[in-house]
């Protein structure tokens, strides 16, 4: 298929948001409300009504300050969970917006349960219960009501940078032979994190039964890297503790109906390891398995019928397939405990800390580009409302910066830029031989799993195997040039695979650089098994040097207050 059939179109908007998830929708709504004169456009790879992480729904708002909690106490909790290293400024500013974001969701129609006093029904200190099956359609409705334009089925592939400033985005339709350059005065990146870097938990037809949205492929990270943006903490991979096979959330059981984690002998084991944080609970589970006392479980056998039925309702709002598991095993939740396991590693800024290096206004190191949600680094434990709070902060900063004097772009300049970019972006369509995106992605996943701390090595890494990963990824990066595509759908997949290969290279360089073990499982080195606060209580950052095709790693100091994790 030749590429010249593709239609090329230049569009203009004031504020451009890439990705219509929780952060993107709230950024767009905030921009429209902050200045109704502005045109705001949201680019979405799928369709905003059910795209991204929230497609299935949620059963709790996990970032909310219940009475007694404050932004400071939230920061304290996140810092403990993150083993001392976190961007205090980002977590605090995010925490300050959690409750207003929750209230907005309620106003938009999200059914949050309330008690007699009119307060949301708490599920924990920082969590409230929700019947959130329809959260995404509800948010999409609010987006449309705001007057923002939405371009569905359009996949962003590269930032348009002119004179050192981000001035727009190149994007391809996922269904039609059409490519765009969308020009904007401000670009807010909310593309989410990256799944599919590591070999997943389940094989074959179940390969996408995973924790993180498999359609979040790290486009924002990759676009930012190619444009020279500084990134942080890619070595802190997030690994979720989930139910076996269906990879459904465990918090629904652990916090929802409050039952303990037990080993195969029925013993509670977390205290044995002094496990208090999320990564420690995962590491303790792995240790029990290694000691021959696995598999491990959440002990739902202690539940009565009422709690059992409540659990099913909660799962239908978020992860319905676990009900099929119970039905296939001819058991009710209270008949036997639910087995748990670790997921494959993901690169996400919402649970982990990987992403763009930003300031409190969520400005990236590239002028004109802002980042919020999973794609923004340094502030974990975002969940839905934290992503929204960041989207709001990014939009407010973008509005405040809009007065900057930008040199006008002529239509001819834009057209020429689009034509030049189309040559490179549409290249896979002209390849008659080479690699399919899927085959190359499976190769990438195997390399990362075996040499860079995937499930098969218990998530642990060491220098010799990381050096192997570095070498094999370099070859994969060469092979990316030979990706082939026959249609718009294939082309999207080709760009997703290319993006993942670049992200994987950055992950490996970060893992090589941090010579300590800060987070069990997430970043654990067999050759440097101790946590070393004296040398390593700092951020590992990087940027990609396009010209030299190298990842340049640097360190940034931790600028927080005193940290005490001796008590809970």
């Amino acid at each position, binding site marked *: 298929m030749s590429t010249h059939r593709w239609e090329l179109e230049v569009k203009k908007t004031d504020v451009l948001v890439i990705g219509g998830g929780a952060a993107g929708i709230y950024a767009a709504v905030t921009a429209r409300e902050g200045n109704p004169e502005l045109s705001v456009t949201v680019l979405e790879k799928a*369709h905003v009504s059910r795209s*991204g992480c929230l497609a299935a729904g949620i059963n709790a708002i996990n970032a909310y300050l219940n009475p007694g909690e404050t932004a400071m106490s939230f920061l304290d909790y996140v810092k403990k969970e993150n083993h001392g290293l976190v961007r205090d400024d980002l977590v605090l500013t995010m925490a300050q917006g959690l409750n207003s974001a929750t209230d907005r969701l309620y106003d938009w129609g999200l059914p949050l349960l309330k008690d007699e006093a009119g307060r949301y029904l708490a599920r924990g200190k920082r969590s409230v219960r929700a019947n959130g099956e329809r959260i995404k359609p509800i948010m999409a409705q609010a987006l449309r009501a705001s007057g923002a334009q939405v371009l569905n089925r359009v996949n962003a592939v590269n930032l348009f940078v002119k004179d050192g400033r981000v001035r727009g985005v190149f994007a391809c339709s996922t269904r039609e032979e059409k490519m765009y350059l969308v020009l904007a005065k401000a670009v807010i990146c909310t593309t989410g994190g990256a799944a599919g870097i590591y070999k997943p938990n389940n094989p*074959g037809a179940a390969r*996408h039964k995973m924790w993180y949205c498999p359609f979040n492929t790290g486009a924002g990270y990759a676009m930012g890297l190619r444009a020279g943006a500084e990134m942080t903490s890619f070595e802190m991979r997030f690994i979720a503790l989930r139910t076996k096979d269906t990879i459904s959330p465990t918090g629904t059981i652990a916090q929802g109906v409050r039952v303990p984690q037990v080993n195969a002998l029925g013993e509670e084991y977390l205290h044995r390891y002094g496990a208090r944080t999320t990564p420690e609970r995962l590491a303790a589970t792995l240790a029990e398995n290694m000691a021959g006392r696995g598999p491990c479980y959440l002990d739902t056998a202690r539940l009565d019928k009422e709690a059992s039925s409540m659990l099913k309702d909660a799962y239908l709002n978020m992860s319905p397939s676990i009900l099929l598991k119970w039905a296939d095993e001819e058991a009710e939740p209270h008949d036997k405990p639910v087995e748990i396991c670790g997921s494959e590693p993901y690169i996400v800024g919402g649970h982990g800390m990987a992403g763009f290096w930003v300031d409190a206004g969520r400005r990236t190191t590239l002028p004109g580009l802002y980042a919020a949600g999973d794609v923004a680094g340094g502030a974990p434990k975002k969940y839905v409302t934290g992503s929204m709070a960041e989207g709001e902060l990014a939009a407010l900063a973008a509005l405040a910066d809009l007065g900057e004097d930008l040199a006008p772009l002529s239509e001819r300049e834009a057209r020429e830029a689009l034509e030049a970019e189309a040559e490179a972006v549409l290249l896979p369509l002209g390849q008659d031989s080479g690699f399919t995106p899927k085959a190359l992605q499976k190769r990438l996943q195997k390399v990362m799993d075996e040499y860079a701390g995937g499930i098969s090595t218990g998530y642990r890494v060491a220098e010799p195997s990381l050096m192997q990963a570095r070498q094999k990824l370099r070859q994969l990066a060469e092979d990316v040039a030979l990706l082939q595509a026959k249609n718009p759908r294939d082309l999207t997949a080709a760009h997703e695979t290319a993006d993942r290969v670049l992200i994987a290279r950055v992950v490996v360089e970060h893992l090589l650089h941090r010579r300590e073990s800060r987070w069990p499982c997430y970043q654990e080195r067999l050759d440097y098994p101790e946590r070393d606060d004296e040398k390593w209580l700092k951020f590992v950052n990087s940027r990609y040097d396009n010209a030299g095709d190298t990842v340049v790693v640097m360190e940034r100091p931790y600028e927080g207050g005193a940290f005490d994790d001796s008590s809970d």
Partner: protein
Amino acid sequence: MTVRIDGTVCDGCPHAKEAPCMRVCPGDLLTKDSSGKAAIAMPEDCWDCAACVKECPRDAISLFLPTEAGGRGSTLVARKKTDGVQWTLTDRKGKTTRIFTAGKKVI
């Protein structure tokens, strides 16, 4: 493969600008086959979010567990209501259970 489309029930929503199942899939995995009925293009890419299952106006789409993840024949169908979702779980012996989950604030 995690959703099954019953071709005897699916009519391809001929009057809709875009069939609801095709609109909502976060992976854009649903297409129409040569007979104009919905089909899943890359079954192994399905995330099991059940958006299409809830959205289908004719209950033609059901969710099931792939064999690799321990699936043994149970199915889930969902019907969207104004204030929530009516689920029907059918176990491997054919016994059905209906569960309603509230999902919208009705003021």
